[in-house]
């Protein structure tokens, strides 16, 4: 059953709904089906790392350090897990100080700029991201929807945090327009595995008619309004695609219903954070493996977050009571440094949870990880708001685009815009620059 589908397609073809997706992104044909599509995963953390305990010693290809041991070793045996050989660490990445008239600070400069490449955008005076983030640019180029995940709950400062709407997500659909993360594992499960194909044709037909209405309304509007409806149409198309797609695998068991355990589980409880993080990561692995998406992002807390890390025996407000005291790369005190190492080791081990899972899935001549780029970013370099040496971790071969691993690439300071440029390039989108830097190129020394 279709409602004049041909007429609709003609209407869409005639309507200038498709806007340029990025200043520096060249138009490109729809991706051709290949046996192993490329995939992108982004992890984003807040509050910086502990510099002396993050970077491995010079010359080592095993990339060991107190923090990175969480990424590169098997937690039960302590043995290397093989990820180091597929990993590159980029040293020297910085975010220039530029508040652009907003009332933000370094948290916002790192959080809202890292993956958008744009200057902060003042709305009122609040600091918002100035353009779409790289995950959303790529999603639009690929014509897919991202799986955007986060755990935002926080006992120290519950989410939503008043007047900090802009710190909900590092991912941006458009200037000042967040991609809202999903935070409830059960809701993600229901979204990914709705469980029935009944009504798919009906829903598709209804959405077709809605899309035709969108095209008609869009035709009478100015560019800013049209961009909104363009995004609406893209979303409808991605829902239609998901309705049409048969998952390549069986639905997993339902995750825990944390909201039933505690209505504040997504607001003010630290108790369930580790379980929710693990459930969301596992759902991301499934979504990628089952072909339900090719782009997944996972955010540990909101920008400038204040998890207490009781589950790592820290039990302090990490932002106020730990990170801010890390005033030198060597660390301010053994105790404070120890807390930071534990928190960051935790993040490393969660990245490993996903990366090792992908690396265990054979695909083509290698593993799924070989066709994926896993990025682990950070809003700061050091917790006292230093924006230098922000640790950037790139795992996976991105379908062969990144040939070598086991490296710390340290060629001096590199502007953060290179991260977005690198991601787009290795994912197959030829760009010379990213965000507000038109010609920075990918990270030097990587490719």
């Amino acid at each position, binding site marked *: 059953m*279709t409602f004049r589908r041909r007429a609709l397609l003609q209407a869409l073809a005639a309507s200038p709904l498709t806007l340029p997706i990025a200043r520096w992104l060249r138009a490109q044909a729809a991706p051709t089906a290949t046996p192993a599509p490329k995939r992108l995963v982004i992890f984003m953390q807040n509050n910086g790392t502990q510099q002396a305990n993050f970077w491995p010693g010079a010359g080592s290809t095993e990339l060991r350090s107190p923090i990175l041991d969480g990424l590169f070793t098997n937690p039960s045996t302590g043995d290397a897990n093989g990820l180091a050989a597929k990993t590159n660490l980029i040293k020297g990445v910085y975010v220039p100080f530029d508040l652009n008239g907003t009332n933000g600070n370094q948290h916002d400069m790192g959080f809202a700029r890292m993956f958008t490449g744009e200057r902060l955008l003042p709305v009122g005076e609040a600091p918002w991201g100035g353009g779409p983030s790289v995950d959303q640019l790529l999603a639009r180029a690929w014509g897919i929807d991202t799986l955007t995940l986060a755990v935002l709950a926080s006992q120290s400062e519950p989410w939503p945090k008043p*007047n900090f709407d802009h710190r909900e997500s590092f991912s941006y659909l458009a200037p000042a327009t967040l*991609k*809202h993360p999903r935070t409830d594992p059960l809701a993600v499960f229901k979204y990914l595995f709705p469980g029935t194909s009944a009504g798919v044709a009906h829903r598709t037909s209804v959405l077709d008619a809605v899309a035709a209405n969108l095209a008609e*309304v869009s035709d009478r509007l*100015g560019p800013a309004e049209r961009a*909104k409806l363009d995004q609406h149409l893209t979303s409808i198309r991605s829902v239609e695609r998901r309705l049409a797609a048969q998952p390549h695998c069986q639905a997993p068991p339902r995750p825990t219903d944390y909201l039933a355990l505690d209505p504040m589980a997504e607001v003010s409880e630290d108790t369930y954070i580790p379980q929710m993080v693990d459930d969301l990561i596992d759902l991301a692995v499934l979504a990628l493996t089952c072909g339900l998406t090719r782009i997944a992002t996972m955010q540990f807390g909101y920008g400038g977050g204040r998890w207490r890390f009781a589950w790592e025996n820290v039990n302090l407000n990490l932002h*106020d009571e730990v990170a801010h005291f890390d005033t030198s790369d060597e660390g301010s005190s053994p105790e404070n440094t120890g807390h930071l190492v534990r928190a960051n080791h935790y993040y490393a081990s969660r990245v490993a949870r996903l990366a090792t899972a992908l690396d265990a899935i054979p695909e083509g001549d290698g593993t799924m990880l070989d066709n994926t780029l896993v990025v682990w970013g950070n809003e700061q370099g050091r917790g*006292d708001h230093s924006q230098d040496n922000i640790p950037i971790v790139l795992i996976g071969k991105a379908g062969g685009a990144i040939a070598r691993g086991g490296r710390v690439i340290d060629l001096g300071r590199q502007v953060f815009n290179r991260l977005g440029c690198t991601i787009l390039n290795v994912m197959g989108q030829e760009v010379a620059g990213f965000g507000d830097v038109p010609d920075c190129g990918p990270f030097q020394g990587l490719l």
Partner: protein
Amino acid sequence: MEHARSSLVLPAAVWLAIVVPALCGCHDRYAPAPPTAGPAPISITPPLRRLRRLSSREYDNVVRDLLGDGSRPASGFLADSYPNGYDNGSAGLTLQSDQVVAYQVAAEALAARALAGNRERVLGACNPADTADGEAVCLDAVLSSFAARAYRRPLTASETQRLRDVFQVERPQNTFDGALQTVLEVILQSPQFLYREELGVMDALAAGPGARIDLTDHEVASELSFLITGSIPDAELWAAVEQGQFATPAERHAQALRLLATPEARGAIGAFLHQWLATRRLATLSKSAEVYPTFTADLASSMTAELDGFFDEVLWKRTGSLRELFTSPHSFADAALGRLYGVEVPEQPGFQAVTLDPELRPGILTRAGFLAVHADTDSSGPIPRGVFILSAMVCHAPSPPPPNIPPPPPPTDTGGPRTTRQRFDQHVSNGSCAACHNQIDGIGFGFEAYDGIGAYRQLDNGLPVDSRGTVVGLGALDGDFSGAGELAARLAGSRALSDCFARQVYRYALGQVEGANEDIGWLTSASSPDARMTDLLLAIVDSPAFTRRSFE
């Protein structure tokens, strides 16, 4: 996102001069205007407009009024973020696929329920089985009446045809109701339903930059009803528009006055106040169970209910002024709130009117719900209280804190116990902090007689409370005060508060933050300590900003 708006105030003739030569290929855009009979000069530049998507609150109201469905399906929608500070903003609001699915699920359930239980809302009196061509007649009725209410305007020919096609494709394999249900699903997911266009006659877009575009009567009616009732035009307003009785300022003003007297207006204006005062956060507020064991979800909802009653009392039963809101001791309490306020309330469910101590509990600033929201989870929170009053009530937001703020000392350590005030005192003794914190803490310390859930106290951590404060850097408001009651009285009579309130109303009404150089004197002049707060809504309805927009 917001764009800079022109603050130019030009007579209409100049605008014509800018526009007309552009149309005829002339490039001297700022040539003097020839004398011409254009629209009457107006005194303000109408703002730019943005498409506004129905907020969750509006969506629930609309399906209640359109379909008679009170199930509040939007409670399952994604939360939008609104840079204008209110839940009806126009910036951002792009739609992601999760929300497409949520609209889909809601539309399917709403359409099924409407045809099962509220058919007359959709079909009116039409019965498709009545005559041979009954189905065609009824479909026409749905498209010309129900769909128009849903879209807030008559459908275009192609919109009508599209819905007809949906019905005709569906009908051979389905019942009349089944096919009609599909039509309803399309309507409820369409942009014409989900977005408030309110952007004027489409052809006028050809006019080019600088043009002013008149909104249609249907659009102004929609804007008016969303502003005052948070929903679509009611039957009376709709009939007035259809009959051409909504074209003059006097007719619009009369409809606004009429709507202000409806129960829906109470709900919508109460929702605005809850947003301005941030007291809607009571719904998700949590407190340290150790420090505030009596603070439960039930107590938080009692606080919300008290404020609902208080707003109603102030707005509709008393003078409706800012002074009333900030000084009235009249309120409502159930047994739990009675204990918190120290007033006698019978131990039984329900609220009763109470008169609180006029010195300790005057007006909104000393209501438990307000104080609990503006506090820390485990203490009183002079900083959030000071920052909020500066930002939201006098529109004088302090700069954000610098990095590397050491946490305050604990309430008790080797130096003995400290009051909250003593813990934060270093703000004003430390030179770099003092610049802002003299202003913030000077206000916030005045609230120290109220703990983190709004209970009155004379001791903090076993030590006497000091609730003397001082206002600095705010002109006529400056000076020492003792306790929140004195501050409330000073604010209540101030121009700073009434001007800032006008800005808040603007942001709510227009769905966007006023431009940095935008002169909204036309609105602030309608605001004063003793004017009705709702008079500002009327001032907006009466202004050209409401019925026109500037082309971008």
